[in-house]
């Protein structure tokens, strides 16, 4: 290994790549602008959709109930729903999203209530549809109220106190510190984004410096120089790693700046909201130390990605061919990252050995301020081993004539 040669190759590749518009786009512009825009954009749209759905008064149809005029009157008075006349095709209307829910009142509902019977009210809805779900919530609230009211009346009839059927009350309160709540919500998405960015940032430089060079005929020129091939691989590999890390660092930077700007825009409100509940807060709080933890853990993963993409791209004869090899790899990367985001999957010794998934899981913990040092050590160590193996493979690949001079 000769550091001077490695540095010479690295500097040349850096200059060469920075002069290429496509690299600048993939390494700088996309992470700096597109990623935060996308994240905030999607977040913003999601919030808008939900609040618009909440703001809408759902149309509700009552089936039957001609013999229960009091209940109907109460429903008509309910401001949060819009009662529509009964129609035969109610089920179709729900499927068509014209109607949110339909409620079937059994025959002689009111009379039954007065007589002490226990009739069943059925709410027909559209499973999994957001607006239908909200309407179900409204209807359940209404009938819970009616049920409680009926119970009270029945107790009063018998001269019994209301506490007989409601001996105690429950209420819920969050005791998890805000950074844990934030870590849990943001902890899922942040590692996922970091993993994708690390991968994306490495792709373009890796392809350009391997398959691209073979295609343009400069690889043979480079091999004419007396530099050891290991040094060539290392110089190029370091450049790929730079692309990977800079894509990640730049997008994290621009996202923090946007968070900060948003935060100051909303002023004190943001801080209050963030402290209270992270569900709809624009600024979920996370453990700041966790960020450094995440960055440290990402390093070997970036090395692993860079080396793997480099090796795969080296095999290709042309840039296009290399792209066709690398594109399916995106799914291999995304799958474990998504699984790591799923709720309920927690770190254990076996999962700690699964690359990418382990990163996703440990990041979630670190951002919530939980530090399982033994797992962290296993994950860091195993990923370093994988990365080392991948790098060794890259060197071996580069030394193979049938790969470098593939025709």
């Amino acid at each position, binding site marked *: 290994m000769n550091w001077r*040669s490695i540095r010479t190759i690295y500097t*040349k590749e850096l200059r*060469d790549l920075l002069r290429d518009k496509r690299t600048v786009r993939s390494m700088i512009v996309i992470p700096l602008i597109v990623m935060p825009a996308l994240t905030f954009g999607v977040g913003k749209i999601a919030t808008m959709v939900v609040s618009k759905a909440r703001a809408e008064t759902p149309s509700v149809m009552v089936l039957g109930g001609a013999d229960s005029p009091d209940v109907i009157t109460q429903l008509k008075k309910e401001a949060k729903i819009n009662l529509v006349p009964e129609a035969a095709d109610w089920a179709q209307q729900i499927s068509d999203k014209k109607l949110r829910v339909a409620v079937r009142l059994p025959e002689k509902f009111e009379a039954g209530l007065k007589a002490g019977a226990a009739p069943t009210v059925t709410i027909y809805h559209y499973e999994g549809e957001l607006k239908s779900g909200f309407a179900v919530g409204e209807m359940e609230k209404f009938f819970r109220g009616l049920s409680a009211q009926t119970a009270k009346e029945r107790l009063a009839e018998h001269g019994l106190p209301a506490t007989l059927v409601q001996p105690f009350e429950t209420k819920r309160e969050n005791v998890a510190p805000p950074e844990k709540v934030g870590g849990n919500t943001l902890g899922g998405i942040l590692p996922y984004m970091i993993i994708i960015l690390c991968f994306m940032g490495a792709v373009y430089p890796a392809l350009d410096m391997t398959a691209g060079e073979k295609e343009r005929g*400069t690889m*043979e*020129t480079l*091999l004419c120089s007396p530099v050891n091939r290991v040094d060539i691989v290392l110089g190029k590999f370091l450049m790929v790693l730079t692309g990977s890390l800079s894509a990640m660092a730049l997008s994290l930077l621009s996202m923090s700046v946007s968070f900060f700007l948003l935060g100051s825009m909303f002023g004190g409100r943001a801080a209050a909201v963030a402290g209270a509940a992270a569900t709809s807060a624009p600024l979920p709080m996370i453990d700041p130390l966790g960020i450094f933890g995440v960055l440290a853990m990402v390093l070997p993963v970036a090395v692993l990605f860079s080396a793997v993409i480099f090796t795969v791209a080296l095999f290709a004869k042309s840039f296009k061919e290399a792209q066709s090899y690398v594109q399916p790899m995106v799914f291999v990367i995304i799958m474990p990252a998504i699984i790591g985001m799923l709720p309920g999957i927690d770190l254990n010794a076996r999962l700690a050995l699964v690359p990418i998934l382990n990163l996703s899981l440990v990041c979630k913990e670190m951002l919530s301020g939980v530090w399982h040092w033994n797992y962290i050590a296993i994950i860091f160590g195993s990923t370093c081993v994988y990365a080392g193996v991948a790098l060794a493979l890259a060197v071996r690949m580069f030394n193979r*004539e049938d790969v470098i*001079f593939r025709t």
Partner: protein
Amino acid sequence: MIEAVNLTKIFRDKKRGEIFATKDVSFRVVPGEIYGLLGANGAGKTSTLRVLATLLAPSSGSAVIAGHDIVRAPEKVRAHVGFLAASTALYGRLTAREMITYFGRLNGMADAAIRARIKLLADELDMHEFLDRRCEKFSTGMKQKTSIARTLIHDPAVMIFDEPTLGLDVMTARAIVRFVRDCRARGKTVIYSTHVMSEVEKLCDRVGIIHDGRLCAEGTVGDLLTRTGETDLEEAFVKLAGIKEAA
């Protein structure tokens, strides 16, 4: 000095099986001499020269170049070799100066020495006008000059040319031929592969005829003509290579 002994290069191809691109080739080239490697397409010229330049490892046999063994000290060999082929391209996004400087540094030269050498080469090759422009916009002539300067930056004792005039226009090709002669005049050891008879007649002190990976005959152009009783090198080549032409 180039000394090849029983050089053999075998490629293993899925469809074609074992291909002897170079088979038991032995020859010697001394300083101040241009040795021509004459052969048709697919004869094994490129493979032989790539093995000499240590881009490929020989399957068996060996060669010593400028006192270094191609198998045991490939990096030292490359430090004393300038390799120029139709397939060795330039980095399009670098300027000619950056390109040449890069190869100077890869050869372990100090920046001051590189600057001085570029000045000298640019004078000789008349490159000053485009030295600081990017290679991607160059004409073939400018590209060829830059490539030559790239191979000469470390002043190698041995020059290997693999069909350097392939696809070039007449004037650029002539400039290359002149430059190859120049290398001989400076006492460099030169090996030059081609399939063009006239280039061999104009340039080479000695010729090796290569066919199907084998070196079939060797000598001066005059030798080869008398040996076959021909007056035309092309006829002599066909006879010596043992090519049976369909009637």
